[in-house]
């Protein structure tokens, strides 16, 4: 099964790379949908943690690093090269000399120092502050105890030295939407919320609140020959059904599909050949609270994993728009263990484990769940009869999405069902099982294992990526054996695209976020788009 899934992931990759074949054509308008709400909160993307604003970031802004979906790792973006000290903590960046902001200011080291200080400024309470915290001295700055971030040093206009708190891979925190670089010569910072200025391939043109953001090609973009498109209309479309009609009517060029649409599109000529799929870095799970007596026993948690037929639920309810989870780290993680089998559906084994744990007669527990169709109340209702067969009674406790976050981070639950970030950085993803991570941070299941901690701490210190991944793979397997959660699935994100669109990539971090400077439109597009 796992071999097949990996093959599926590879096929997704081949679809995308096929779309990148030679013959790029310049010009045209891309109508791209932003499906996560009916408004953009702000155009000041440093201030926003929402996925919705990432669409604007991709067009207008750039960070020190960016995510390369083909290589599946962060790569240098605003520097041509970097030198790393022996202990791995000091990185010297040789910045791009041809990068220019949309207001005409050339990129210099000052812009990085200005931007990182703005993000970490305690008065701003920006979401990216936790990412900047990997820079030495940032914690003190965030706490208001220092005037400067000591780890930031300008060598000259084109050279920046950053000292990190440890031998980390800074690519992950510094490729984020919330850590992009702004020009240091804009006096009124509040103007970023309405008139964003960046280094990206497209210049901000217009924002119609609640409707769309329009961007146009930036003539001085540092990548020669790019972007191909003249213009992008990023339109807000939260309703699946409305997006479906608009896509079929060729009013929009891409559409993110839900399970029902995915099933329908797969069966239709003209649509089924233009689906881009990827295993995203989210693990859907039911987290168990060890403060609830039965969940203290590992055998009970394992029994639940054996008692539920996850592949059946994925097939029937999620319409195969997910990959069964074998552990916490997802398929696309470099530390994923393809040889580690998932919990087999085995009700008899579940009964035996429950009996061993002293729960032969079963017990009852409550699952706090949002209405989400893929990881909410419908899934809890599906596991209900399966667990009943081994004597466990499940009671769904429906809450709204925002209330779910509150209940979980305040440890006010017996169990919860959620979709949680499990990549792309395996070190950061497994931090959520490190005993020193607070329950309210992301150790929601209050997991604590000395064996896991030892491996995790070793991985933190390891500088060889292959060896680090090996340690994290072992740590991940310990989590799987201890079953602090029911491992349900890894999200399969699916994007439908019009046949004239090329250059889309299987972005495992968020498929809806695409590198606009790579996208081009061929001759077969409708006249209005060419």
């Amino acid at each position: 099964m796992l071999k097949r899934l990996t093959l599926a992931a590879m096929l997704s990759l081949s679809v995308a790379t096929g779309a990148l074949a030679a013959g790029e054509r310049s010009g045209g308008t891309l109508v791209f949908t932003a499906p996560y709400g009916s408004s953009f909160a702000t155009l000041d993307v440093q201030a926003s943690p929402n996925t919705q604003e990432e669409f604007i970031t991709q067009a207008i802004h750039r960070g020190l690093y960016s995510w390369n979906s083909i290589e599946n790792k962060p790569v240098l973006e605003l520097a041509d090269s970097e030198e790393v000290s022996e202990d791995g903590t000091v990185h010297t960046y040789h910045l791009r000399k041809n990068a220019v902001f949309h207001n005409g200011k050339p990129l210099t080291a000052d812009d990085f120092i200005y931007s990182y200080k703005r993000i970490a400024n305690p008065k701003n309470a920006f979401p990216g502050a936790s990412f900047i915290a990997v820079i030495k001295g940032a914690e003190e700055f965030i706490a208001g105890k220092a005037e400067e971030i000591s780890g930031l040093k300008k060598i000259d206009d084109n050279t920046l030295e950053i000292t990190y708190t440890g031998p980390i891979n800074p690519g992950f925190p510094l490729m984020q939407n919330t850590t992009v670089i702004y020009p240091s010569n804009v006096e009124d910072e509040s103007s970023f919320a309405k008139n964003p200025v960046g280094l990206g391939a497209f210049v901000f043109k217009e924002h119609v609140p609640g409707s769309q953001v329009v961007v146009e090609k930036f003539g001085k973009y540092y990548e020669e020959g790019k972007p191909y498109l003249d213009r992008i209309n990023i339109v807000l479309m939260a309703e699946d059904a409305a997006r479906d009609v608009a896509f079929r009517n060729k009013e929009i060029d891409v559409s993110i599909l839900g399970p029902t649409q995915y099933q329908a599109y797969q069966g239709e000529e003209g649509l089924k050949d233009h689906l881009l799929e990827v295993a995203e870095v989210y693990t859907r799970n039911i987290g168990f609270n060890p403060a609830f007596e039965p969940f203290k026993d590992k055998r009970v948690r394992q029994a639940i994993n054996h008692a539920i037929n996850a592949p059946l639920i994925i097939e029937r309810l999620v319409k195969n728009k997910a990959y069964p989870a074998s552990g916490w780290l997802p398929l696309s993680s470099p530390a994923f263990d393809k040889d580690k089998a998932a919990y087999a559906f085995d009700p008899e084994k579940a009964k035996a484990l429950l009996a061993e744990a002293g729960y032969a007669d079963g017990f009852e527990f409550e699952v706090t769940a949002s209405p989400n169709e893929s990881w909410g109340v419908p899934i809890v209702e599906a596991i209900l009869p399966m667990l009943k067969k081994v004597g466990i009674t499940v009671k769904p406790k429906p809450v709204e999405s925002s209330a779910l976050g509150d209940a979980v981070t305040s440890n006010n639950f017996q169990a919860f069902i959620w979709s949680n970030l499990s990549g792309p950085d395996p070190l950061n993803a497994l931090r959520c099982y490190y005993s020193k991570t607070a329950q309210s941070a992301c150790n929601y299941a209050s997991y604590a294992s000395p064996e896991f901690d030892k491996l995790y701490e070793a991985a933190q210190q390891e500088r060889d990526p292959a060896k680090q991944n090996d340690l994290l793979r072992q740590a991940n397997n310990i989590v799987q054996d201890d079953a602090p959660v029911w491992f349900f699935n890894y999200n399969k994100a699916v994007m439908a695209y019009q046949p004239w669109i090329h250059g889309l990539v299987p972005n495992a971090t968020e498929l809806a976020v695409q590198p606009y400077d790579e996208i081009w439109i061929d001759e077969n597009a409708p006249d209005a788009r060419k």
Partner: protein
Amino acid sequence: MLRFTLRRILQVIPTVVVVALLIFVIFSVVPGTFAASLFADGKRAADPQMIARLNEEFGLNKPLMERFVTYVTDLAQFDLGTSFRTRQPVIDLIGDRMGASLQLAIAAMVFALVVGVPLGFLAALRPGSILDTVTMIGAVSGLSMPQFWLGLLMMYLFALQLNWLPSFGYGDGSFRNLILPAVTLGVTPLALLARTTRAGVLDVLNADFIRTAHSKGMSEMKVVRWHVARNALVLIVTTVGLQFGSLIGQAVVIEKLFAWPGIGSLLVDSVAIRDIPVVQGTILVIVLWFLVINTAVDLIYAAIDPRIKQE
């Protein structure tokens, strides 16, 4: 007339105060916070430091009474607060969206009036005719159809099958983009207006003064124009007022479906992420709109029918 107008306007004030109080209490006790909503989609790990910073910045750590006093004091100065999400004044956010909402509500009402009133009138003048039967079947269907479903049908028919109109969005603000959402939103008031007009006109047609007018030898056209239309107008104005007042509220679903950038979609998004100042401000504006329209209707009554002013 001046005293009547002043009295009606003063009656609006206690209603607004009660509504403001209710909105505050409801959104203070419902579970979920804005800070927690930032992590609700699971796409990032919760950051307790950031949650604490945001709760402090937005004053959510303060006692309920203190927050209420601040809310009421600000409201008395026409300050609806600052959005948690965008950090912009709520009044600006609503201002950005109000134009699109009004455009949609007015277009829907005009459609309902232009089609619904004549249909109801004609149906009443020819009771039992084919036109009457078809109009009433259409009216019942219009009232019973869920707007969301009707909107999807319209999209499939006029955008996908016939390719006459765009299926979604505001576009460049063109009339073409307005047609589908306005017609979808206008179907319910249209149906109600057709039924009400028919009932009102039938009622007047059976009145003694109509028989008197006929017996005096007045032409059919004059009877309809001078007596029937004028007397049925009170009922029609009532229906128009109530429907127009509630259209902005009803538009929430339509705006969401057609990606129309009005205050309805702003409200839905804000409720989901617990952006309380925006929710409070938007609901207050919707309620105010309803009250203003109703007050205007009362004043129009008085102008149409002097008996109401005397009462």
